[in-house]
């Protein structure tokens, strides 16, 4: 292969790699084993107890994404903490995001379309979840 062809091929591969990394904010790697799940739950619970608003919001987003990507995995270990944050969170935004996360944990089948999307940022996912909830729950008593 000529040197120039090699360089073009290399640049294209690099472009594909960069492009695919930019696509998704959340990891789509499935939860592998109960030990890993326990570690994930422990870490995110610690984040939910943080005084830092960004940490709490980020944890809520990752918990929701975790459930969307692993709908059959039991993540009930988050239920109490997420409910507490939805009632006692320090800002309206945190309480709203906690409420949306709670609905994803409770009723993940409602969000089938949202689980197949790749989000570039956390708020994009929350917006999609919120829109789905409004469309499904508030349209002619669908549920």
């Amino acid at each position, binding site marked *: 292969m000529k040197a120039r062809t090699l360089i073009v091929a290399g640049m294209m591969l690099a472009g594909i790699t960069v492009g695919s990394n930019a696509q998704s904010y959340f990891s789509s790697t499935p939860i592998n084993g109960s030990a890993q799940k326990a570690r994930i739950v422990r870490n995110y619970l610690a984040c939910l107890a943080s005084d830092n608003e960004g940490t709490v919001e980020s944890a809520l987003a990752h918990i929701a994404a975790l459930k969307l990507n692993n709908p059959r995995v039991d993540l009930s270990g988050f239920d109490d903490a997420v409910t507490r944050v939805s009632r006692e969170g320090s800002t*309206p935004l945190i309480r*709203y995001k906690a409420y949306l996360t709670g*609905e994803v944990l409770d009723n993940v089948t409602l969000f089938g379309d949202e689980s197949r999307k790749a989000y570039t940022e956390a708020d994009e996912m929350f917006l999609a979840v919120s829109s789905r909830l409004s469309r499904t*729950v*508030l349209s002619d008593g669908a549920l």
Partner: protein
Amino acid sequence: MTIVDCRKTPLNFQCCRLLQRINGTVTRLNYQEGAMKTGTCALIVATLVLTAGVQRLNAQGYFSDVVSCQAADLKKAEKNYLACLDSPNDGVLESGLAHISMMKIFFPASAFPTLEQKVAELSVAGRTPTIRYKAYLTSAVFENPTAFALEAMAGYEDGEQLFRSLAAQMQAQLLG
């Protein structure tokens, strides 16, 4: 369908365009040179404006307006709405939530602690996603009623319209 013939003068043309914007009363306009005198046209326009106003008033049927609410016995209303929230009927409960939201928007300074507590419980433990979502939106109204003050100005045909409006506003305010 109401057909208005009017002169092709700027004044009449603007009046008719305005009416079209107010509501759909004027659905077709015939612009014919000299078809009607300006005075006659003005009379029709005034009548249509009045009709549009009456139609709007009649359309605000689902919730009581703020004037009627001022005369309401809030203690009694709170007691009745609490009974609604305990109902085994989903429709009764959801309707109660809609009316509670509107009451809080109308009376932002009044405290309804028992209702607020019950609504907060329903947002977490309501028996359907619809009840939980509507209860959550009602909780948001309790938390910051003035943020939803514009909702009181709109006329809703049913509770669903109100909740859709509250949800859209929450989404816009919090998630952009």
